[in-house]
């Protein structure tokens, strides 16, 4: 028995501590995988990011007026529910008609103004067809 004890790398007293550590590590891993990452609204003009909002951190709607390429003026609204182009001073208004973006991976694009509003997040699909 004495010889068996000598061959042990860890003593019996150390084993519960190691088991707790292993359980803790596993728990942390599962927690990191299970907690969904928040949705972030990203606003870009001609490929350059000009605003970024973590939607869950917003307490209420926030409005932002910007001027895109070719002098196209847009008003973008961020809220805990999502993000949208509230108004666009261009003829087609495709971005405005896209409506409220609520899921990661969705985007509204103003081609004349070269403006992109998109939602990023952990469960983002790879692409959107429209």
């Amino acid at each position, binding site marked *: 028995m004495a010889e068996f004890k000598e061959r042990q790398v860890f003593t019996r007293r150390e084993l519960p501590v190691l088991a707790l550590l292993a359980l803790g590590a596993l728990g942390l891993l599962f927690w990191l995988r299970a907690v969904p990452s928040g949705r972030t609204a990203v606003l870009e003009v001609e490929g350059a990011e000009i605003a970024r909002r973590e939607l869950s951190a917003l307490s209420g709607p926030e409005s932002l007026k910007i001027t895109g390429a070719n002098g196209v003026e847009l008003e973008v609204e961020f809220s805990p529910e999502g993000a949208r182009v509230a108004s666009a001073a261009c003829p087609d208004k495709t971005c405005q008609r896209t409506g409220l973006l609520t899921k990661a991976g969705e985007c509204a694009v103003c081609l004349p103004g070269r403006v992109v509003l998109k939602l990023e997040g952990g469960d983002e699909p790879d692409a*959107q067809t429209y």
Partner: protein
Amino acid sequence: MSFTSPEQALPPERRKAKRFALCLTLAALLLVLGFGFFHFISRANREESLDSFVMGSYVRQTVWGAQSQEPLMDVCVRLAELEAHLTWRDFVGEESQRDVANLNHARGKKVEISSETGTLLAEAQELAKRSGGAFDPTIGPVSALWSFDDSPSLPEPEAIAQTLPLVDYTKLSLDSEEYLEAVPNEDGSHTDSLGVRYPAASLAVPGMAVDLGAMGKGAACGAAVEEYRQAGVKAAVVTVGGSVGLFGKKPDRKPFRVSVRDPKGEGSMGVLDLDGGFVSTSGSYEKYFEEDGRRYHHLLDPRTGYPAESGLVSVTVWCEDSGALSDGLATACFVLGLEDGMALLESYGAQGLFVDEAGIVTLTPGWAERFSLTGEGYTIG
């Protein structure tokens, strides 16, 4: 005489300490190897992305396994060339590149075109034939009247009636020639295969005009995927406007997830799980204007000259090999309506999703298990 190992000669405490040190060293070694392996895998699977505006569209690229942004930049250059080939506008690219614009201005004369444009025109003409004219690449004169890309307005009925005879895909002629093509095999060798290319085209009647707008974004996805294949990347997703190209296998080996825009509301109506190929959508919600209380959308029926009234609001189509075809089929199916559209997809071995005005979603059999409905107000038919 008994044999004693040097370790056994040590006192028990020293032996224990030595083993503990050995374990620590092994753990450190494993950690270093693990990090090295992780670094190697991460580098091999590195994700590169690039957003840009090319071909009058928002282009989004995500590529796995590229060591730099080079393949993504190459795609931007390739798409700019493709735009010059396919546009009917006179100010894009060099004059010698403008295949479609030159063809439209040639007043019946034969024009030399790039092999890329030739292949696309042949594909478009075949689709026109198989759809009974519900898709027509010579719709240019009618689409110019509606001007959905610039300042849309309702044309006079007389103007449409006068222009409609100019829309006729059978009067588009393509010169064809066979050539030997070296097709690469998986083992690196090549096999000669007989291919067909179209070096010249002509339009029979002055005033006729080709408009490949209904295939252009899908064709761009096809060109991008060809670039990714040549660059040897592991996987890629490219979106050109609302058309999507999917290539390779992602590092997590999971299918690509493509969300479908909600045609009646906001956001998306569902998600498709796909292993590759090309996806395009044609919807009446994307471009439209209202006049005298009536809505006019941009999906024109080449047979009437007016926006198609097929009872559908959106059609999404998947093709395995051709982005241009997925795009053209989506338009053709929208114009044809559910029943004829389904038959057309079957004839091409393509898959699709049809949404009608009542919110009924109809899927081709191959998509029954691949589509998850998330939007409200829809039922699977």
